């Protein structure tokens, strides 16, 4: 159906070609994942399919792109749009109308379909959004916005859908919904689906084939599961295979003689694979009951918070909310979108004032303090790092807060932070032009410049590819020694497992569970209520009657068995 022959493309002004001789065929009805590290040309390849290249983005290109025998490169963009739909990674910028139905029907209206409203409604129906058709865009959650972007592309009834990282910003429940919808479109409506995806667990569960791109070339196209078994090659390309596959590979490498077995990629395959090996040793669950009296850092008592709403009465989110945060806590704040994570953070830094209740910090009542007054005691790193970059260079941004407060040796301290966060090469650049991971590291350095005793991080690993995410998790480890109390709001359960000593589960403005990872993850009711998906490796171990939070722990549990 789609045939690409010897495709080259160089962006104007670029030194190197982004696409370097791509040869590829995609069949009708395929569900394909395109994988590859940042800069391997994934997005560029997709833009050659939707006509943006060469119709809109001019560059130096050669080769042939065919769709059912027609030459895509000489087709007007409008004609392509009816055949191939595209959903951006930053999908919210793709939505241009104020209301849901209007946006879904926008393309159809523009291309002159008389029945554009019906088409819009059909598309919303396919994306589970029909109930929201008269809502305004800003009333939707992030997950719903993403579905709307999909509906907007779907309304033109294209045969092919291309999605650039469809679940990067979604919590597990919404991510699953997204993929279930895609699967439905693929199986029941015969759409060909192409996703750029970093989450290999989803590739294993949903995709049929996978294409590995590296330095602007297709290295191979394989059956999706076979592709994920190429552990070493994937890791070399900065792609992380499913945790289950990695664990199986590690175990196989250590046990000589059993190389023959096929590595598992999905949960059910993993079950068969590991059960065939030795039984998993019940890891020694170390119940560290800290009887040491911990000092309270922040105390929230009887907090009630109300929000202004555009229509009708203010909404109450927190009602008599109580919480103690102790010095030295490394807290992960989890819960689905809208559970109150951001509200809690805003309360703590003094951006939001409670309607009733008291906030004490180190025993001092700070309820009425302005955010500026609290700034040197508690610091917040936003989810969107661009909004922290207010100066002309990364260095100036890191120095800014210290300089304003007349810290004597601010230049040396900034230099130390730059070295610590590995920002030397880019310290003089404008932060906005950095890659996602670099920008995130810079924002962390900015956040801790004043060495606040308490640091809040809002989704520090959202929107990052897996390799960059690992890099940020490592960077966060560095923070542990520098900052006494850290609170992270996140959907990323691997981060939770590796970082937190205390987990707070929020659900509609209430803490429904508070404790160690052992305590929280073993509570099925809480997991269900708050929509928490523990890491795949934990669920695997759980199935096998054991307990492990990381791949290493999992592998070690097996090794112990061998030693006995």
């Amino acid at each position: 159906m789609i045939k690409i022959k010897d495709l080259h493309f160089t962006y104007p002004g670029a030194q190197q070609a982004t696409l370097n001789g791509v040869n590829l065929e995609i069949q009708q009805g395929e569900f394909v994942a395109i994988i590859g590290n940042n800069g391997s040309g994934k997005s560029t390849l997709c833009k050659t399919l939707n006509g943006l290249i060469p119709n809109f983005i001019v560059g130096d290109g050669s080769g042939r792109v065919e769709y059912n025998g027609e030459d895509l490169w000489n087709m007007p963009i409008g004609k392509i749009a009816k055949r191939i739909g595209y959903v951006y990674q930053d999908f919210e910028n793709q939505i241009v109308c104020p209301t849901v139905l209007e946006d879904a029907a926008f393309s159809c209206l523009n291309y002159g379909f008389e029945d554009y409203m019906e088409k819009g409604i059909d598309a919303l129906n396919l994306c589970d959004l029909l109930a929201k058709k008269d809502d305004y865009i800003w009333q939707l959650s992030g997950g719903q916005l993403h579905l709307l972007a999909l509906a907007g592309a779907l309304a033109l009834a294209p045969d092919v859908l291309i999605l650039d990282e469809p679940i990067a910003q979604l919590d597990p429940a919404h991510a699953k919904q997204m993929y279930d919808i895609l699967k439905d479109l693929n199986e029941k409506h015969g759409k060909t689906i192409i996703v750029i995806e970093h989450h290999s667990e989803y590739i294993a569960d949903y995709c049929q084939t996978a294409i590995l791109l590296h330095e602007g070339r297709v290295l191979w196209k394989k059956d999706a599961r076979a592709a994920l078994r190429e552990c070493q090659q994937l890791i070399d390309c900065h792609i992380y295979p499913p945790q289950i596959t990695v664990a199986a590979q590690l175990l196989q490498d250590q046990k000589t003689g059993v190389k023959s077995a096929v590595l598992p990629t999905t949960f059910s395959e993993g079950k068969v694979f590991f059960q065939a090996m030795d039984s998993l040793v019940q890891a020694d669950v170390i119940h560290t009951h800290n009887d040491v009296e911990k000092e309270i850092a922040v105390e929230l008592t009887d907090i009630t918070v109300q929000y202004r709403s555009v229509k009708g009465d203010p909404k109450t989110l927190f009602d008599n909310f109580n919480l103690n945060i102790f010095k030295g806590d490394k807290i992960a704040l989890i819960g689905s979108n809208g559970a109150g994570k951001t509200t809690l953070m805003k309360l703590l830094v003094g951006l939001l004032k409670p309607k009733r209740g008291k906030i004490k910090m180190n025993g001092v009542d700070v309820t009425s303090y302005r955010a500026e007054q609290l700034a040197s005691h508690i610091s917040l790193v936003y989810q969107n790092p661009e909004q922290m970059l207010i100066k002309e260079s990364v260095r100036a941004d890191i120095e800014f807060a210290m300089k304003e407060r007349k810290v004597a040796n601010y230049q040396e301290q900034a230099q130390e932070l730059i070295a610590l966060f590995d920002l030397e090469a880019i310290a003089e650049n404008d932060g906005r032009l950095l890659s996602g991971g670099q920008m995130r590291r810079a924002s962390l350095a900015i956040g801790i410049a004043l060495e606040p005793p308490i640091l809040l991080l809002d989704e520090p690993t959202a929107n990052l590819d897996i390799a960059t995410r690992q890099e940020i998790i490592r960077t966060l480890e560095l923070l542990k020694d520098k900052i006494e109390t850290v609170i992270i709001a996140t959907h990323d359960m691997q981060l939770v497992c590796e970082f937190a000593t205390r987990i707070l589960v929020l659900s509609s403005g209430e803490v429904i569970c508070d404790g160690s990872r052992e305590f929280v993850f073993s509570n099925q009711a809480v997991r269900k209520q708050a929509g928490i998906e523990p890491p795949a490796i934990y669920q695997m171990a759980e199935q096998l009657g054991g307990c492990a939070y990381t791949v290493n722990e999992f592998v070690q549990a097996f090794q112990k068995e061998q030693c006995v």
Partner: protein
Amino acid sequence: MKAVTEQLWDKFSLDFLRNQVLKNAYGNDDTIIAKIDPRTLLIWYIFFGVFPWFMHNPTLLLGLFIFVAVTTRLAKVAPLVLVLFCFGVFTQSGYLLIVSWFFGGNLETLAPLLIMTLKVSITSLASITVFSGLNPDRLASGLLWFGCPDQFAFSIAFAYRILPILMEEFQNILLSYRLRGQAPDNSGWRGKIRYVIYQVRIIMLSFLPLMLNIAKRSRTTVEALELRGYRYANQNKVIKKMKIKMLQLSQLDFYFALISIAWLWGCFVVAS
């Protein structure tokens, strides 16, 4: 007292402003005014925006003023807009009224000023009615019908689409300055002045990062508009016709026009 100042201060917050703008643009789409066809409202507006300037009879103007005051009430205009309206009218001409009265002006000097103030008020209230009652998309299709270029009509709707994003982005950047910067001590009147200057300075400084961030975002939007056929539609007359076909006159439009004309006629009769 402290509670009062805090409440007042709260009204100056960007969050409040954002809420009010959204309220005005979208929060009142269930009013009677919002159900009237945009074309009817635009014609009505042209009349009430122009007609008062040629009238000098205070009774007639007062009648018109009462009428637009009622329509403003019906449109459920956000409080902030009303406050701005009062402030605007006062700075336009209302203060002259007070000044001239203060310096011993009699009714004769006051009358022309009063008329002037009434005229300004009528046109302002009429525009408030129309623009709060019409959400941006309806306004855009109405303008389109009158032959306004599509680019202009679309940019109105799109401006409202990105306004909330823009304000949130601005709020966060401003916050970066506030939290990381060091506000001057605001005790005493000198401190207060310094504090205000500081606030104004960081608001101005926030604009550059805001523009850069928006520029970064809009790259996707521009590409998406192309993919979604925006340019294609602009060059095509048939599609423009489709866009305005959704506008439909109803009985409500008829009654609205009838009541407006009847009221005007009544005012004329009373005035003469």
